[in-house]
């Protein structure tokens, strides 16, 4: 444990007990034992992509069932299992690990550190994930079936009326919680202690700031999630009555505790996206980010406010008027710092010399489509209208705009932006553009009509629907299949880019800023063994 924290010596003077961090091993062992932040970043990103395709396959079955009214392909109970596991996989298996992958790859390079601060824990926090999701997905093949109570696992659906999957579900959530907490601790320690001399907090790239704040959010709320699933477990199997009215508990309390975690969780999934987009837009506008300091403060205030808005998910539970007003106004308040961000991105582009490579296209789409998701969020935040919209497809439209065209698009943008640094090759710009345009068109066909379906009253999480919704659902399903297929283009782009292609310069984007572009492409296995000079 003495030398694996930081690699200080030059590469050739190593002693045997840290050769694991030198890439000496080959084959599977390299990946199993690695403590190198770049290797672990790669593992996270591939894992996330595989989960994305798995969750996506479930969505395809969901959309196939909803292609026309009536029950065609799957049983209602299996449909519920699919929506539940789709949600869990996308949130905890695709979006969150992808961001952790970015953090691992980029943060040490951006702050001039040789590696993450706690490399062994880093290895562990990744490697428990595949086993965790094997358990979750494996529950499909058990007698009980997979969890069928929604990704929000409201009691008593997940307790009294559970199909018997609760124990495995709770176990899986605990492990992914532990993994996220370890990842977050690592990020905080790295940023606090390993910044190169001269890199003050207010000189850190905004990307690093957003991950720093996100890591704190994770440390604050993942334990609450662990607590609530523990209560669920003891309610289901050990006779406690936290959420059981028969024993003096309260099912509504479940929702309070869950959403106390749940709302900050949605910001955990969007703040890193803000960081990525705030890196890319200046690069392709060839101008520094407009209002850096205000971006830092806006991000922090979004994070703080996220703790006092949770009950906007619960307007229809019969809260008293005061509560509804309080949570309504607090929620709307979040729109202010969010607006500051959108303003700053637009101001960054204002009179810049723009160019439209794939990372920039995804970032631009992010700004516009995330804002649409923010607007539908504002509509949902208005208590009286939420009584109409709640639990309809309007909510589904809202959170897919912020999560798919928001978080996911930022992940694509970031991947295209840093692929040359990761692989040493340029990706195929024409295939990238194909991926972008196919995704852009199909994603809107997929999610935009859902707004209207919701306004017209189609409930979410139901395998069948009334006839008047048939046309819209058909278009939505077509959009869904097209979006799913478009993602295979991305897979091809990435594989081609790893295999070869035009050699990438150290700094392939002329407007890019940051320490990561001062090292060669592909980034050497060890970077910044001696800290860079920062002025």
């Amino acid at each position, binding site marked *: 444990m003495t030398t694996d924290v930081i690699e*200080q010596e030059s590469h050739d003077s190593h002693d045997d007990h840290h050769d694991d961090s030198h890439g000496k091993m080959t084959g599977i062992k390299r990946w199993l034992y690695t403590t190198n932040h770049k290797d672990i970043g790669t593992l996270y990103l591939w894992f996330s992509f595989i989960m994305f395709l798995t969750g996506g396959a479930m969505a395809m079955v969901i959309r196939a069932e909803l292609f026309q009214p009536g029950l065609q392909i799957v049983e209602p109970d299996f449909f519920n299992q699919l929506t539940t596991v789709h949600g869990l996989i996308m949130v905890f298996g695709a979006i969150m690990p992808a961001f952790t992958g970015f953090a691992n790859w980029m943060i040490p390079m951006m702050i001039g550190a040789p590696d993450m601060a706690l490399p062994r824990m880093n290895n562990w926090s990744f490697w428990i994930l595949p086993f965790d999701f094997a358990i979750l997905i494996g529950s499909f093949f058990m007698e009980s079936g997979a969890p069928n109570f929604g990704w929000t696992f409201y009691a008593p659906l997940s307790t009294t009326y559970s199909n018997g999957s609760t124990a495995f579900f709770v176990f899986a959530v605990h492990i992914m919680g532990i993994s996220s907490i370890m990842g977050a*601790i690592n990020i905080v320690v790295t940023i606090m*202690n390993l910044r190169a001399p001269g890199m003050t907090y207010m000189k850190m790239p905004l990307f690093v700031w957003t991950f720093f704040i996100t890591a704190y959010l994770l440390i604050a709320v993942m334990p609450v999630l*662990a*607590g609530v699933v523990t209560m669920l477990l003891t309610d289901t199997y050990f006779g406690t009555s936290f959420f059981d009215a028969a024993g003096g508990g*309260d099912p509504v*309390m479940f929702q*309070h505790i869950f959403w106390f975690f749940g709302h900050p969780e949605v910001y955990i999934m969007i703040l890193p996206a803000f960081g990525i987009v705030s890196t890319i837009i200046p690069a392709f506008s060839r101008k520094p980010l407009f209002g850096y300091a205000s971006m830092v403060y806006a991000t922090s205030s979004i994070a703080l406010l996220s703790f006092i808005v949770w009950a906007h998910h619960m307007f229809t539970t019969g809260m008293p008027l005061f509560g509804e007003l309080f949570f309504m106004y607090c929620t709307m308040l979040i729109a202010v710092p969010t607006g500051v961000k959108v303003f700053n991105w637009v101001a960054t582009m204002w009179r810049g010399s723009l160019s439209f490579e794939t990372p920039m296209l995804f970032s631009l789409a992010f700004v516009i489509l995330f804002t649409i998701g923010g607007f539908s969020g504002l509509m949902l935040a208005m208590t009286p209208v939420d009584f109409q919209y709640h639990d309809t497809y309007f909510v589904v439209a809202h959170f897919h705009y912020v999560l798919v065209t928001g978080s996911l698009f930022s992940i694509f943008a970031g991947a295209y932006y840093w692929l040359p640094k990761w692989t040493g090759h340029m990706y195929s710009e024409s295939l990238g553009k194909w991926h972008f345009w196919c995704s852009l068109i199909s994603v809107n066909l997929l999610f935009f009509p859902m707004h209207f379906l919701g306004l017209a009253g189609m409930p979410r999480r139901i395998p069948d629907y009334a006839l008047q919704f048939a046309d819209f659902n058909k278009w939505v399903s077509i959009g869904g299949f097209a979006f799913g297929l478009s993602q295979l283009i991305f897979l091809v782009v990435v594989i081609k880019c790893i295999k070869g292609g035009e050699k990438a310069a150290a700094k392939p984007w002329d407007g890019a800023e940051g320490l990561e572009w001062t090292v060669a492409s592909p980034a050497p296995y060890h970077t910044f063994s001696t800290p860079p000079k920062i002025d």
Partner: protein
Amino acid sequence: MNKGTEQKNIQSSNSKVVKKLVLIVFGMFGFGFALVPLYDVFCDITGLNGKTNGASVAYAADGIDTSRIITVQFISRTAQGIPWQFEPMEREVKVHPGEVKFVKFYAKNESNRDIIGQAVPSVSPGLAAAYFQKIECFCFTQQPLKGGEEVEMGLQFYVDPELSEDISTLTLSYTLYDVTGKVDS
């Protein structure tokens, strides 16, 4: 400063930060559980979730306010899995605030096994719950019924005259649960 000590310094400051963060993690785990009593206290004080008093209270109103009439409605439902018939014997009563009323509920075990039931009350609108005072209620205890047995169960209550002028109708809802496996006596 040579490389070795520099590295030691970083390590010890790393572990300092880690310790603090782990403390936050455990603190927040505890906080999740602390939310449970906090929630109950909060609801008790504000009367937000429609929960009524869980044990008998003594009559404590100063007099009857004959200028107001409150309609108290009763509804009952049985939770999934309990084969009982369970109904209020009067659908609604009109009372003056401060006036003590006695009503009865009817329950019958329609199966042929012995079952212990527990009724859980809730008042709507929630803000009125704190003013709905039960002097005696079958919901304070569990109710065992043999297969086929029936029973009339009493509820004695009054509405506190402090109840907001805006409220003229209260709905008291009982949900009956099967607690046969979980009896604590």
